[in-house]
């Protein structure tokens, strides 16, 4: 009798375990606390709150190789899992473009969309002689050795690409001459620039807000299509004659082997999140600007970004 109850109980326990296994899972390919973790937790929370998914979304942190471990896991082991989403950002596509995920390519998964972005910025210390982006670009064109940039990513990373894109748009042929040091994060890059060790900083808007308000730095340009709400006095690079848009987007990808129907369902759910009040609040609270691109439109945009990153990376020698 007891044995029977026990086995019935364990069957019940198994059934109970099976239910959360069918719940949606979001993989954050980094430790808790970073941007990808934020994406998973916010999107996961909102999906459940607005009723797009039946159960709370389970967030799994899978750190390693700048997202490469999670990418390999999704491609090799969960290629057809329709209940799986993975947080992604510009770093994901930059690394894919540079073959930094151990041979994995961008077409092995499907990018669903981006629902917000951290605008790229070019910043100098407030005692810097450069008053506008043109001043800075002219100085580099006249003598590439006169300006060193500091950024929070390694050489070839997204922060490095921003000044390279601007200088390429300005007509600099040999972009290898541009001096760049990668330090440990945007705040560190600001410290080096305010301390006078580097002449300019390249990073994301959210990294510099405190320093802008304290008056220690001057933002020469923001790399968006329009001026950013709340920072209307900061000119875009486009206004100053350099057609460069570099936004550290926040979005998701799904496994490559899922059906078209499942993919479009995810695109619709993501659009619902992007339009939700909760997401608007989360963006304001975290210094993100609207940057919604979903579905096939997003895939086309991603392909363009990857192609351009590959071209620049090849020129600076990060890839062959």
């Amino acid at each position: 009798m007891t044995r029977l109850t026990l086995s019935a109980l364990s069957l019940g326990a198994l059934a109970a375990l099976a239910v959360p296994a069918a719940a949606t899972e979001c993989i954050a390919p980094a430790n808790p606390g970073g941007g990808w973790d934020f994406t998973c937790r916010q999107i996961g929370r909102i999906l459940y709150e607005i009723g797009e998914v039946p159960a709370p979304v389970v967030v799994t942190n899978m750190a390693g190789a700048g997202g490469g471990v999670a990418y390999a896991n999704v491609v090799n082991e969960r290629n057809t899992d329709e209940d799986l989403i993975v947080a992604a950002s510009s770093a994901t596509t930059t690394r894919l473009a540079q073959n930094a995920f151990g041979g994995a390519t961008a077409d092995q998964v499907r990018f669903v969309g981006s629902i917000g972005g951290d605008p790229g910025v070019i910043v100098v210390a407030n005692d810097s002689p450069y008053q506008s982006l043109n001043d800075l670009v002219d100085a580099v064109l006249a003598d590439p050795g006169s300006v060193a940039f500091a950024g929070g990513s390694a050489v070839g990373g997204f922060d490095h690409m921003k000044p390279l894109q601007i200088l390429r748009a300005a007509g600099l042929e040999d972009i290898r001459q541009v001096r760049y040091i990668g330090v440990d994060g945007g705040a560190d890059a600001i410290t080096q620039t305010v301390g006078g060790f580097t002449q300019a900083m390249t990073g994301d808007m959210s990294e510099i807000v405190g320093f802008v308000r304290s008056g220690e730095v001057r933002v020469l340009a923001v790399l968006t299509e329009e001026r950013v709400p709340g920072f209307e006095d900061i000119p875009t690079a486009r206004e100053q004659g350099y057609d460069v848009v570099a936004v550290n987007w926040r979005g998701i990808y799904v496994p490559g082997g899922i059906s078209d129907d499942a993919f479009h369902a995810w695109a619709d759910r993501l659009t619902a999140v992007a339009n939700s009040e909760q997401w608007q609040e989360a963006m304001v609270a975290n210094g993100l600007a609207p940057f919604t691109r979903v579905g096939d439109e997003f895939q086309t945009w991603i392909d363009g970004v990857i192609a351009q990153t590959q071209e620049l990376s090849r020129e600076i020698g990060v890839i062959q």
Partner: protein
Amino acid sequence: MDILSNLAMGFSIALSPWSLMLAVIGCFIGTIVGALPGLGPANGVALLIPITFSMGLDAMSALVLLTSVYYGAMYGGRISSILLNIPGDEPAMMTTLDGYPMARQGRAGEALVVSGVASFVGAFLATIGLMLLAPVLSRVAYQFGPAEYFALYLLAFCTLGGLGSNNQAKSALAALIGLGIAMIGLDKTTGMPRFTFGELHLMDGIDFLVAIVGLFAVSEVFFFIESHGKNSAIGVVLDKVTIPWKALRHTTGAMLRGTGIGFVAGILPGAGASLGSFLAYVAEKAVAKDKDSFGKGNVRGVAAPEAGNNAAAGGALIPMLTLGVPGSGTTAVLLALLLTLNITPGPLLFTERPEVVWGLIAALLIANIVLLIMNVPMVKIFVKILSVPSHILLPGVTMVAFVGIYSLTGSTFDMQLMVAFGILGYVCRKLDIPTVPIILGILLGNAMEDNLRRAMVLSNGDWTYLFSSSVSTGLWIAAIVGFLAPIFLRRFLKRPEVQPEAIGD
């Protein structure tokens, strides 16, 4: 007066029965997490962040809980260093050098109490320093560019000889092994992977915790197996635990010096707690008259690095709060917590969000006092652990270490790597090569190389850039003196007097 009224405001926010309870829970969890090898303060705090979200804690309660865990882990790291010769986390590594010999001599209780008090002194004074000087000291980070950081790391390597191995060549060899291991991973200056053999798990380089747990804990298991459990190093003499007032008085100077050095190391974002405890130990040995007894159970060799690493943990909060630059892995996680709570650290945090800053400072002071009160009676419990037979204790510790390492990245690769480090540690100990310099090489080697490479980019390959500022020149002089002084001093003091209190092993 301003500071007092601010502090009163901080306490009015942080001091409620609810937050006191969270502080006690946090300190307890932190101490355990710190003491378990493989689980360091960074993963302790990281693991708790999702929990604070699901508990729905408000910003202040979450901060109280996590800072208690942060300081608790800094306190707890010393326990396994002293009792088992296995550092609970990387800053506690220096404490093994004298703490474990003390435990073998039956002075485990004394070592634990002195190191606990030293942790309190270091952390408490550093919090006071944070309170009084943070806005001023945040400017210090602006004085440190790549050349200055390179010189600082060079200073650490030049004083490595002061660690006191019998054979300096073996120390140097161990440091070189560590530097070699540090080369593995993505090269930040070219974006190219080095020595990764296409293995994705090696792209981020090798985690210090994997190396520490492998070199210390897993190699201990191999020794244990080899000797059929008879000759294990774990087997210390138990003693009665009384408060060693004499030892505390004897080490007051060591604690204060350790605090000063650790605090300065903490303020510099590129240095951190490990460098703080290392420099505190080396400096204490340099000023001591009884140099020979260091490494054999000198109580000052326990007090100085413990005060140093806790002061550095407090100091590291200064660049984190005023600049948003985390000085260590743990402050990086705390920074992430602040950001998710919608608090952006930066130059204006002290003026715009005083309630957060002063609440945090009050929380730190509370956590410290709770930890001191908790730690003295808890010493008795911890010492009791040693009465567990080592054939039960050691496999248990190893199991926890495996779980802790698995929790780092959730991959079995790190566990295999840890066993490989265990084999390296076994071979090194057989050959009498010290393992502490290997870890220092891994810890400091990466940062030293990165800064050298950055300096070369900034100067277009001009080496004179490395001595171009007064700060870097000063550090170079200190490094050269630190390297040469022991050589000359040894010649002058060729036959040191036999120390009356030196106890042979």
